[in-house]
């Protein structure tokens, strides 16, 4: 059993488990894949190339919001702990997280955590 990539427009668009006999009769262009190659790789001139997918502006903003929300959730206990070390700086950081989406820094420059 081996992994074969199905190639369309020089891109591996699907990876299937198959044997050589099946591949011989298969109607689409395929290539036997090394272990470290998979979906999304380009296959040009018998060479595999991986190009990181380009994210859309919307995807970047969604990920930034998720990162911001995660930062608030993971530091929520600090707001509830009066004697937490450097607590005031953390409270300021949490406010910066809340404000961040409406600032010019969003989404490129993230607020920095206190020491």
């Amino acid at each position, binding site marked *: 059993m081996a992994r074969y990539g199905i190639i369309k427009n020089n891109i591996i668009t*699907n990876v*299937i*488990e*198959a044997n050589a006999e*099946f591949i011989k009769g298969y109607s689409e262009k395929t290539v036997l894949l090394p272990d470290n190659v998979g*979906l999304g790789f380009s296959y040009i001139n018998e060479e595999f190339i991986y190009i990181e997918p380009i994210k859309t502006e919307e995807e970047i903003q969604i990920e930034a919001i998720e990162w911001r929300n*995660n930062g608030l959730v993971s530091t929520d206990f600090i707001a509830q702990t009066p004697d937490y070390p450097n607590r005031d700086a953390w409270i300021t950081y949490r406010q910066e997280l809340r404000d961040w989406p409406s600032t010019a820094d969003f989404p490129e420059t993230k607020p920095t955590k206190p020491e």
Partner: protein
Amino acid sequence: MSNFTDFFPAASGGGGGAIPKYEEFTSSGTFTPSQALIDAGGRVAYFIVGGGEKGQTYDGRKIGGAGGQVKMGYATLTSTTGCTVTIGAGGSSTSGEDGGASSVAFSSAGGTDITANGGSGEARPSNGSNYGGWQYTNNSLYHAASASPGILGYGGGGAGYENSSIYSPGVYTGLANTGQGSAYNRSAGSGFVRITWFE
């Protein structure tokens, strides 16, 4: 309530007691309907599972890969022409590699092609039903959330974990031919196809 055999003329018309025939695919191949199946109405039940997604890192955390899509249903075939069956591979190369799609080209025998997509979109339910650990809900990240359990042991999501190595409930290494997603740096399960019929 309907019985399984209600969907199969050959079984329901024979006074009961019919034993279904089935063919399972753990690797890509060809399903060839028998003449007896076509003569009995050509009805088949399919169970198709896409490959699972490999786990990945996000924001310093390890997120489980999504399980492969699971599709069940019926098709009616009218000829004995062989139908190509592909089995999607589980994500195993780059971090977060999506699972491959599994499919049956029923159209070769007069039916409709069916594809179960590979796992994709890791921990976000909005990107697929069989999500991995650390899911997002309403744009909030809940730590160590349970991955999707999948269905009948197929298509479960991979486990997530933080630097403490405490895993959330979910699959670590996907079993072959289950479509299970995997935890970070582990391989996901490949897909599966079962076709059942009476003749």
